[in-house]
């Protein structure tokens, strides 16, 4: 091998090596392990006695009316639906909707004030998960110790119990208040990168605030919004820590990721069924991949990643 070729190879190894190791070790290997484990009978002792599809058979039950002779088992169907509702509402209301509102309003404010509000919205992200969850537990406590009920009692309204009456709303809000900050940061920097003269030109042409947002800001946010949608969708699909910390293993918020966690590692929930949990996780991975590819196509992300035809500056 010539020295230049050797250098090329060693450079490639040097630059791509760490990232490749990271990708293989932390992303690819776990998926392969999950795939293998889901087709075994691994439970409490982590020993594998046989390769089997019985974990997947636990998710369905025979039915004469169904297409393939079986239908989804009620608890699994329920987990799928709860995941869909949870991900959809957290994503649209908070991670995209609210993040956009925050980015638009804080960039419209004078520099320092906008920065202050953004910093406040970043606080939940910076606090440890357990502390954040404890605060939520205090907020939604059904007794008169709860913050929400204290506020309601001042306004003369009776106490409410969100954990019982609106459990999905609790986990959507708890995850959304944290999740909105990431979108807010990305969208803020995207708004900041819009050339200043476009705003002046629009104003000179007589555009109002809403017109500026519609014709100048939003078109510039297309790619960041697509990216946030795909990324946050995947993150929400597998998230369970706040659900578990706030709701515990409640049936009302037993999403797919919670189901997998409670069957495998969660304390005091009949856990230790590693292969069963792996099968549920494998289905989550497949759903994640399918939806990510679909969103990729729908938002035309490919165009974002192609090389620009002209050199910019």
């Amino acid at each position, binding site marked *: 091998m010539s020295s230049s070729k050797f250098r090329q190879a060693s450079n490639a190894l040097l630059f791509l090596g760490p990232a490749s190791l990271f990708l293989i070790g932390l992303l690819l290997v776990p998926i392969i392990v999950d795939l293998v484990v889901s087709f075994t009978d691994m439970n409490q*002792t*982590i020993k594998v006695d046989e390769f089997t599809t019985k974990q997947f058979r636990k998710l369905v039950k025979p039915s004469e009316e169904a297409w393939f002779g079986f239908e989804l088992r009620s608890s699994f169907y329920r987990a799928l639906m709860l995941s869909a509702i949870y991900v959809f509402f957290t994503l649209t209301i908070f991670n995209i909707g609210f993040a956009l509102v925050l980015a638009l309003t804080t960039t419209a404010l004078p520099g320092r004030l906008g920065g202050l509000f953004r910093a406040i919205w970043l606080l939940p992200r910076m606090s440890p998960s357990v502390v954040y969850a404890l605060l939520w537990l205090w907020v939604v406590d059904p007794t008169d110790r709860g913050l929400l009920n204290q506020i309601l009692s001042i306004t003369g309204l009776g106490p409410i119990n969100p954990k019982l009456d609106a459990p999905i709303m609790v986990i959507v809000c708890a995850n959304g208040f944290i999740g909105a900050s990431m979108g807010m940061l990305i969208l803020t920097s995207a708004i900041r990168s819009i050339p200043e003269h476009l705003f002046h030109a629009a104003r000179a042409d007589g555009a109002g605030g809403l017109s500026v947002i519609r014709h100048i800001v939003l078109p510039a946010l297309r790619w960041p919004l697509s990216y946030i949608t795909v990324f946050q969708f995947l993150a929400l699909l597998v998230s369970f820590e706040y659900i578990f910390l706030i709701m515990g293993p409640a*049936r009302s918020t037993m999403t797919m990721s919670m189901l997998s966690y409670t069957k495998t590692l969660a*304390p*005091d929930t*009949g856990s*230790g069924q590693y292969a069963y949990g792996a099968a549920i996780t494998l289905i989550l991975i497949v759903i994640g991949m399918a939806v990510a590819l679909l969103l990729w196509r729908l938002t035309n992300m490919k165009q974002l990643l192609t090389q620009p035809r002209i050199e910019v500056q």
Partner: protein
Amino acid sequence: MTLTSKFTTLGAAALVATTGLVAPAFAEDVTIDLWSRADRSGPLRPGNIVAAAEQLNRAFEAAGSDTRVVVNLIETNAKGFDADALNLLKAHSVGETPDIIVAAHEWIGSFVEAGLAANLEGHIAANEAMYADIIPNLWNSVMYKGERYGIPQDSEVRMFFVNNDILRSAGKDEAFIAALPGKVEAGEFTMYDWCDLAAEAVESGAAKYGWVHRPNVGPDFQMAMASFGIDIYNEDEAKLQITKSGLENYYDWLGYCVNNGSLPADMTTWTWDSTHAAFRGGESMGKFHGIWNVGKQLDAFGLDGKEAYFDKLTWIHAPAGEKGGQPKNLSHPIVYVVGDTENKELAALLVAMASQHVPNTAHAVGTNHTPINYGQIAMPEFQEKGWALIAGTPMLKYAEFMPNHAKIGQYNAITYTGVQAVETGEMTPAEATEMVIEELEIELGDDVIILD
């Protein structure tokens, strides 16, 4: 060499040494790995083993032997005994099997199936005098397929606590309060009467909540299920068991309690803190829990001694499901399990020493657990500080144990989802029963027998 003969040899060696003959000396440290969850509620569970090793070392020293037993304490930080047992099973499957384990008894089935637990029948027979006083019923808790794989370390009794002051405020007289335990025992006061009484306390304004139960999966529910005739374990087949009609009756009862206002509908979403606070803060008439609460109850209500305690609180078994039935309660012993390792004979001997009256009483009295030996009750320390435990020991007459079956954790978790569904109003008792039976059939398969 069998366990028995090894102990005979050990005993003979000690005898030879103490009678002045010189035993062959060899400098050797024998390390005993002791697996125990870091648990403030029982520091002497591992502590008594360490003390036993020290005692044994003094015997070796006196015998002129250089052998010393070193206890290597593996203190784990799992959140509960279930999580701890799962960690232990993982450690075992990678070859790190400890010699002694402190565990919740219902895991014994899993431990035996995994080849982790040593059969102790030979050891117990060979050391009969060391175990002769153990309360016989407790041996059931360490039995798996008819043989013993553990030594009970402590026991407890779970019951319904009643706040007498709330009953008084609700207009009940002393005669009613005094007669309550007797009525429960006779099967005259049923689970439904319990909910009616609790609802009466709430309606009269004497209590904010009628009664509270644990807010998560756990053994307590088993005694209520037993009251409705569910025999959770089929010993002949070593399988878990459920009765469909019994399960529906049990869920019917929970639904009834929520509907009559005696049980909070969101009980399953409470935290432990708010559950304890509701009873200890005098807001709830009843609580469904265990004897180790006594210490905290004394502090919370500002009581000193037996008389003040029983003036404030009454204990009853879980009442019968229907009139004339038998009340139930539950004991959930923590046990020592000996790992099937090369040191198992020595490890078992340390366990035997730690299970004697004096060390076990230090643990039991210090942590409000009932004794494992009958004779402990007569000890001055028990008489003086353990009055609550002495009062609780007769209740063990109706005690059930959790089955030592590998899938009991799953079984409890699934039946608990029915509790959640009924109490929160998501399902009717019939729907919940159907859902739970389906889950049990699918997840436990052949391990559960479903009866009508």
